């Protein structure tokens, strides 16, 4: 974004925006390209981690039976994921997964939220590395839980062989294998990544489009204003997407775990 601002200030806003707008120069070493260790993106990831740790540790430093406002807020975040995702999807056994789901939910929600917070205005999740890592954890987790719960053979039998007539199984088993063991991690990662990528791209198009039209022709100024109004409207949409995607990622992970624990297919 800093780079973006510089570009705008220099009056050389590029339009249309491209993929390269997602890859900002690194902070340390300053201005280097193709160095990803310490960029605005990784800085935001660390910031999100720090904010979450600080918030939860401070608000739960001294828990009381009758909660303070801060404690109540922290508890309601956990209570929301625990009761409305973990217990709802998995049942009573879901309580032991609630801590991970809550961490996952908070992390995705906050890193997504950077997409519309002024001066950040890009989400780390628009780089597929982060959603991919989270999806791999979910993938390993549900398989590990399933294998530990049923044993290796029974788990794969449960997941791969649906209760269907024998003559249709040769068709169903590859489909089940494909959807459960190949597509799941990929779809999890791509769904989150693509949503945040597209959201950022949309905001860029309308913001930069306004500037592009203004610099092309002064008579287009009203359309530029319309374009920026659209940016504001899309920011609200983006807010919805941010919350929804965090929720969806967590719910899907919970649903995979539930599927792995289920007795029957």
């Amino acid at each position, binding site marked *: 974004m800093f780079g973006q601002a510089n570009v705008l200030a220099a009056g050389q806003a590029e339009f249309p925006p491209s*993929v390269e707008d997602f890859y900002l120069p690194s902070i340390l070493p300053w201005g280097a390209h193709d160095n990803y260790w310490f960029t605005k993106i990784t800085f935001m990831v660390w910031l999100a981690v720090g904010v979450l740790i600080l918030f939860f540790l401070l608000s739960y430093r001294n828990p009381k039976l009758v909660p303070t406002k801060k404690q109540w807020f922290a508890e309601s975040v956990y209570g929301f994921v625990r009761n409305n995702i973990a217990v709802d999807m998995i049942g009573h056994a879901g309580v032991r997964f609630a801590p991970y789901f809550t961490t996952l939910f908070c992390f995705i929600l906050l890193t997504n939220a950077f997409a519309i917070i002024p001066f950040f205005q890009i989400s780390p999740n628009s780089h597929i590395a982060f959603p991919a890592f989270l999806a791999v954890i979910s993938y390993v987790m549900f398989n590990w839980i399933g294998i530990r719960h049923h044993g290796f053979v029974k788990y794969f039998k449960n997941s791969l062989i649906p209760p269907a007539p024998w003559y249709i199984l040769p068709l169903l088993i590859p489909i089940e294998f494909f959807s459960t063991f190949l597509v799941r991690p990929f779809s999890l990662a791509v769904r989150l990544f693509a949503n945040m990528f597209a959201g950022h791209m949309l905001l860029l198009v309308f913001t930069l489009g306004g500037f592009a039209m203004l610099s092309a022709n002064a008579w287009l100024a009203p359309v530029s204003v319309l374009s920026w109004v659209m940016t504001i409207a899309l920011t609200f949409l983006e807010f919805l997407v941010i919350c929804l995607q965090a929720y969806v990622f967590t719910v899907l992970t919970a649903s995979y775990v539930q599927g792995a624990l289920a007795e029957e297919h």
Partner: protein
Amino acid sequence: MYFLAAEGGEAAHNPIIPAWEEIVVGGIAFIVLCFVLMKFVFPRMEQTFQARVDAIEGGIKRAEAAQAEANQLLEQYRAQLAEARTDAAKIRDDARADAEGIRQDILAKAREESDRIIAAGKEQLAAERATIVRELRTEVGTIAVDLASKIVGESLADEARRKGTVDRFLSGLESTGAR
């Protein structure tokens, strides 16, 4: 493809290929977050929830115990009250019976006393009457003899004869009175 083509030139990025440095950084950051939150925060929240449930259930249990105790006390008081009422009724009955007994006693004694007084009076009257009769008899005899000797004179001076005559006269008097 369009993006790649549009970019051309220097190192083009493919957004679907993750940068391994970002995977490492993101992974470490997320694992640190998981470690801290899952070890220090959420288990304590579960504990707090549990403590809250215990506190509420304990409160309900205590209230139930207090209620049960109150009910038991109420029963006890009712039983005591009923007992006291029975006792009071018994005492009243006893008192009534006692009073009746005492009244009867007093009446009996009074009757006895009056009977005794009446009897004593009758006895005294009889004794006085007898005395009077005895005195009268002597006196009447003397007067009669005196009168007779005045009338008859010397002939009746004989002791034996005089005695028989007087007795005969008195018997005659008595039989006349009896009739």
